[in-house]
């Protein structure tokens, strides 16, 4: 998850030549103690780098080993899998499929709602707000990231659910012909829309802080050139800031997606879930459940084989999150000439670390 923060920070330090400080360090300390320090530091940092690989591999191996019995089991005949939370599914994929869909759907709703606002805030902070206000606002948005998700969940139950009810009724009454707003409208408000709104708020700080940093790095000359050509401020942003920041915006959004995919407690508390494929946003009984929330709510009561099946869905989530991060990197590497240059300079640095 931290890797695309390096996208932002590495481009910030782009001007500074990477290897220079190390050479300087060596030249200054020709003595043995300095070399020892160097070695220790090298050992520590490369050890940490290896450790994260080992941990990641360990998690993957754990997930695979633990989930195999559940994935391989015969779901039709197993009495264990035919009771409780896993009852009524022909096989593992019939169980994991809707959950996977629900996970992606909830995260997608959050992205649709959250990204424009997040980018708007970032743009306001970087290009519109007076300096003092920008600082305070940036600080506030970062604070949002420190709010625990249980608190967001409770806020969702107490505030967002009833707040959205009239809107949901309106959408259902007048736009009910759209699949998104069809069905029996919820009366308690525990809809996937409410969950999506809260998720959107939760991913705001990530997207905002990354895009803000990137917007701020737009070369001054580009901006001034645009203004000199007679562009208004909005045109200047459109002509110089957005093209420059495009890849950063995409990777920030995908990072937000990663956060939304794994969010558990807020979703578990707010949404009334069912395991099915559904597009509806405003119903009580047709909200697709997400993987993380499903594991959290059913793991305690589940028996061994059911736990294995739940772990299997966890493995699916792991794969999807991984895929999202890969896609993010791939897009970053592809889009925009500036971005391509950045990735190339970054890669060797990453190797030396």
């Amino acid at each position, binding site marked *: 998850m931290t890797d695309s923060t390096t996208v932002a920070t590495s481009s910030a330090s782009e001007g500074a030549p990477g290897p220079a400080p190390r050479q300087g360090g060596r030249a200054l300390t020709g003595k043995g103690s300095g070399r020892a320090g160097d070695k220790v530091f090298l050992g520590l940092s490369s050890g940490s780098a290896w450790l994260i690989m080992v941990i990641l591999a360990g998690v993957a191996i754990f997930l695979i080993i633990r989930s195999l019995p559940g994935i391989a089991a015969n779901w039709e005949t197993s009495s264990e899998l035919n*009771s409780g939370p896993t009852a009524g599914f022909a096989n593992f994929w019939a169980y994991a499929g809707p959950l996977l869909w629900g996970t992606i759907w909830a995260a997608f709703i959050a992205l649709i709602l959250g990204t424009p606002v997040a980018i708007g805030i970032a743009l306001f902070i970087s290009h519109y707000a007076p300096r003092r206000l920008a600082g305070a606002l940036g600080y506030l948005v970062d604070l949002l990231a420190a709010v625990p998700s249980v608190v967001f969940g409770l806020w969702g139950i107490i505030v967002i659910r009833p707040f959205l009810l009239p809107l949901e009724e309106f959408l259902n009454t007048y736009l009910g012909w759209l699949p998104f707003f069809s069905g029996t409208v919820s009366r308690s408000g*525990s809809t996937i829309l409410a969950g999506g709104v809260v998720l959107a708020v939760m991913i705001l700080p990530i997207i905002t802080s990354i895009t803000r940093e990137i917007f701020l790095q737009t070369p001054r000359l580009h901006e001034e050139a645009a203004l000199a050509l007679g562009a208004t401020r909005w045109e200047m942003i459109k002509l110089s800031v957005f093209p420059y920041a495009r890849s950063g915006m995409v990777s920030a959004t995908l990072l937000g997606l990663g956060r939304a995919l794994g969010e558990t407690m807020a979703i578990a508390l707010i949404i009334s879930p069912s395991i099915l494929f559904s597009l509806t946003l405003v119903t009580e009984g047709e909200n697709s459940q997400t993987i993380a929330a499903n594991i959290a709510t059913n793991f305690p009561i589940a028996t061994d084989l059911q736990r294995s099946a739940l772990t299997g869905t966890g493995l699916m989530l792991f794969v999807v999150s991984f895929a999202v991060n890969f896609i993010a990197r791939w897009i970053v590497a592809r889009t925009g000439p500036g971005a391509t240059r950045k990735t190339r300079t970054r890669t060797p640095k990453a190797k030396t670390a």
Partner: protein
Amino acid sequence: MKLTRSGSIAAIALVGAVALAGCATSGDSNAGSDSSKSAEATDYSKLAGTLTAGGSSAQANAQQAWTTAITAQAKGLTINYDKSQGSGGGVTNFTAGSYDFAGSDSPLKPEQTTAAEAVCGADGAVNLPIYLDGVAVIYNVEGASDLKLSGETIAKIFNLQITDWSDAAITKDNGGKALAAGPITTVARSDGSGTTQNFTNYLVGTQKANWPYEASNAWPVAGNVSKQQGGSGVVNTVKATAGAIGYADHSAIGDVKAAEIGVGSDFVKFSSEGAAKAFEVAAELKSNGVEGDLSQSIDYSKITTADAYPIPLLSYAITCKTFKDSKQADLVKGYLGFIASETGQKVAEKNAGSAALPASILTEINKTLSTIK
């Protein structure tokens, strides 16, 4: 599992256990045979050590009350009951050998009983009913304060066949007094739960014709159901939603109104005595084959009188008959013995809002406890 206790503390624990075993009704364990004198008020002060347990969150409040009560006397005793595990986690950790006892809303299944032998040895594990409560049907209906619902109406409402509060069946249950028309929102648990298990047990046991599902710890009805996480999620949602009806552990409903449930032609409010009476008349021993096991099966058709609450909720402590460490066995006997005493049950009734188990089953539990070594 780490147990920190010095030799002297262990010795004290042993002495305490000897005193405890003396109260058990039959003293065929090695400790019990040492002392046959039975004291009226048991002295727990000499119990010392650490008990590691966990499982059912339904009995968590009661466990906390029991822990507080017994550790007030037994200063050296530490009891860690982890409610975050849930019944499934409790049983898993127990059969893996990391718990001294597990709390579970349902007794061990046959394959789990077999699995437990790996930890407990050939003597196996026993299920002891230690916690009794009722499932309350809670509602939030404008203008209704003493709603009465028959079992049939409850089954139809929760199966989404009755969808409006002005339905004739509800009017009939309430003596012809019609409620204002309004849609019904049924609220159920989204997480696997012993409360759901007990509630669906009741529906399956009494309303076969109107309840086509099997008893399960996951809510079986699909459709326009509001599913909420945890008992508190259900209670809060019913509280906040006009026209909502849900079910929850009676001890957790707070100030939300609970319906009177139909028994024959009468309607019964939850009471501690009512739950105890229901247990007395309807609970049948359904042993797992291990001697001294007290697994119960509730025969709901036997609950026919107005002094019995028709939806009892039962939760168990599951423990080994033979411990590898006899000191640990004494601690478990001491603690579970306290729970299965009249005092222990009163503590839970007062502090956790549960119902006290009838004396007859407490005697049975103590009989089993005395054989644990």
